[in-house]
């Protein structure tokens, strides 16, 4: 298929790399050939989804080793955006999480809600001894 692309990222298990990952997502959004919507809004959204999913992988599912790399894959396939974040954790069911309680705001618990608001499909599954959070957004 035309205009497919793929960027595969491996960085140390540290929050200081979140900004690099988010920026790569923004760069991809700004390059998309046939996207009709607001590119800067999409850039922010991709940055945000990458940041939320990667910081969850670091905070909730990192391996013990400091030198373990975090693995993120971003792809445009048939004009859909696929984001996959791999971790060494026990996995979780995004659909089973409660929505944030808007009437009684807590400090945490908004990450997966934000991901689900932006992406069309969000799914966590087992892969090579860990899990992958797979997120799809239709761009057309």
């Amino acid at each position: 298929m035309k205009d497919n692309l793929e960027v595969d990222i491996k960085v140390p298990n540290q929050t200081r790399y979140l900004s690099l990952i988010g920026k790569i997502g923004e760069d991809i959004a700004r390059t998309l050939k046939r996207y009709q919507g607001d590119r800067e809004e999409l850039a922010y959204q991709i940055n945000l989804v990458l940041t939320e999913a990667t910081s969850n992988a670091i905070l909730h599912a990192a391996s013990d080793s400091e030198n373990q790399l975090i693995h993120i894959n971003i792809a445009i396939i048939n004009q859909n955006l696929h984001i996959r974040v791999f971790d060494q954790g026990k996995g979780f069911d995004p659909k089973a999480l409660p929505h944030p309680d808007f009437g009684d705001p807590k400090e945490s618990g908004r990450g997966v809600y934000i991901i689900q608001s932006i992406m069309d499909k969000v799914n966590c599954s087992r892969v090579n001894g860990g899990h992958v959070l797979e997120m799809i957004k239709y761009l057309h």
Partner: protein
Amino acid sequence: MNINIDEKGATVLIEVREERLDAHNSSELKTQMLSLFDEGKNNIVIDLKDVRFVDSSGLGSLVSGFKNASARNGNLKLCGLQPQVKSMFELTRLHRVFEIFPDSEEALASFS
């Protein structure tokens, strides 16, 4: 984290001088606010005009500050939100929790 803390009478103005307020630096902002509360400074304005990007941890640190200020009969107000940062508050309904002002002058004036 690049941050500016300025006492304006009974109110403290915190300027976040970072492009991103995220899981990498938001705990530092929280720590800064906690030490202000320890000193009895419970009225805070946070100016986000330099911040282009906020994630859920960044929002969390602001909620934490807001709750601590309120529990001490103070308040935490925000100003300088860029449009995409503002959208984040709307998505998470936090625009109904915080008082939000265009700039620090108006936010500070609202305390007096």
